[in-house]
């Protein structure tokens, strides 16, 4: 039989990030709001002290959660996001020009990341035509409709969170905690994943794997998930 040691399983987030960090790097971080965040890896990223980061993430976390942790330590110098409404600290650092901000429409952001991972340097989309987003971008009329050219995005390091993963790096996500994680996994020069349940190779159904192991360089079992709820809304019945 073939050698099945993928050398991808690490014992701690610190070990998993070892050698992959440098000042000024670009990091993608999965999650939507506080849902599906790589909590352990973000904590470890904070503790590493790496700085001057460009962070690509749909949101900027909240105070005390997600990327909010890296704002407190002023490790982020630029953010590429679609919505940062829930973070006062972000607002403060933005207004004081400590942070540069690039807003992308959420679907354009997701597709730019997908394109980056798929080797597509640029694609046309109707999203943002006639708005500030289209400024300085190439326009093209195709079959009578106007589009703008958007570029693919890649990262030096992508941090993703899945529900289950095996030691070959295969990942399965749960419910809406999937969100940006699978595309970010494809778009990292290196991708590190954290999972709630680590499995032996062969335990996952190959038809159900959302992220094939090829995209995951290192994997850890995450601990102590806070899984904070940003907006608890209950039925009144």
């Amino acid at each position, binding site marked *: 039989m073939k050698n099945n040691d993928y050398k991808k399983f690490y014992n701690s987030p610190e070990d998993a990030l070892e050698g992959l960090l440098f000042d000024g790097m670009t990091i993608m971080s999965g999650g939507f709001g506080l*849902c599906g965040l790589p909590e352990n890896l973000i904590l470890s990223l904070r503790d590493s002290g790496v700085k001057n980061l460009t962070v690509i993430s749909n949101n900027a976390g909240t105070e005390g959660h997600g990327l909010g942790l890296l704002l407190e330590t002023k490790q982020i110098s630029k953010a590429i996001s679609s919505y940062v409404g829930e973070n006062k600290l972000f607002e403060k650092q933005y207004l004081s020009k400590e942070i540069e901000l690039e807003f992308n429409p959420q679907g354009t952001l997701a597709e730019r990341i997908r394109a980056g991972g798929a080797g597509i340097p640029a694609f046309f989309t109707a999203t943002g035509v006639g708005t500030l987003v289209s400024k300085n971008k190439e326009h093209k009329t195709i079959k009578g409709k106007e589009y703008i050219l958007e570029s693919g995005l890649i990262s030096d390091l992508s941090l993703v969170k899945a529900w289950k993963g095996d030691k070959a790096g295969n990942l399965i996500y749960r419910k809406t905690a999937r969100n940006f994680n699978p595309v970010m996994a494809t778009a990292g020069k290196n991708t590190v994943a954290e999972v709630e349940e680590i499995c032996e190779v062969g335990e996952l159904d190959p038809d159900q794997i959302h992220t094939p192991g090829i995209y995951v360089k290192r994997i850890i079992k995450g601990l102590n998930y806070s899984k904070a709820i940003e907006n608890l809304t*209950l039925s009144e019945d």
Partner: protein
Amino acid sequence: MSWNRAEMCKRAALELKDGFYVNLGIGMPTLVANYIDKQKNITLQSENGMLGMGPFPKPGMQDPDLINAGKQTITSLPESSYFSSADSFAMIRGGHIDLSILGAMQVSKQGDLANWMIPGKMVKGMGGAMDLVAGVKKVLVLMDHNAKDGSPKIVNNCDLPLTGKKVVDLIITNLGVFEINQGVKVKEIADNVTKESLINKTETELLF
């Protein structure tokens, strides 16, 4: 007199046809879900990666892995499916969603929509709004007819930065229903609202 929020949502819900796949924006549009005719088969999409969105959970049944685009806890339904953000916006951009209902700050007579930023104020981001208006088959704006200071929101030209150009198909306000079709055409007027007051409260010409 005019429609209250419940009446506005009820009127908007009539635009959801049997078999429709619908995306409801954050805020008042989310409330439209409460007024959907149970005889109709309507599937709600949430752009963070779900089709078949169910109601808010009962106390204790919330799941942090299951939220909508407004980051509210929700539930699933038997027909639900989950997918990535890229797949979700492929669905939106590809024209597979029948209807999107969004709020607005301004709508122009050409159907231009402004709903994401006010110059000089902190910008929170456009989220998925630009993708929705560019991709969804039909865009319905649900908003108060006038801003808090009384200024009209249906205008000749938006002076706020746009979310999309020529994207709005229908507007429902507390004063009536308006179709964008070579100008702003009045389809319905709310109870006890006069034609004259409607004209006074609208910047652009109304076609009756």
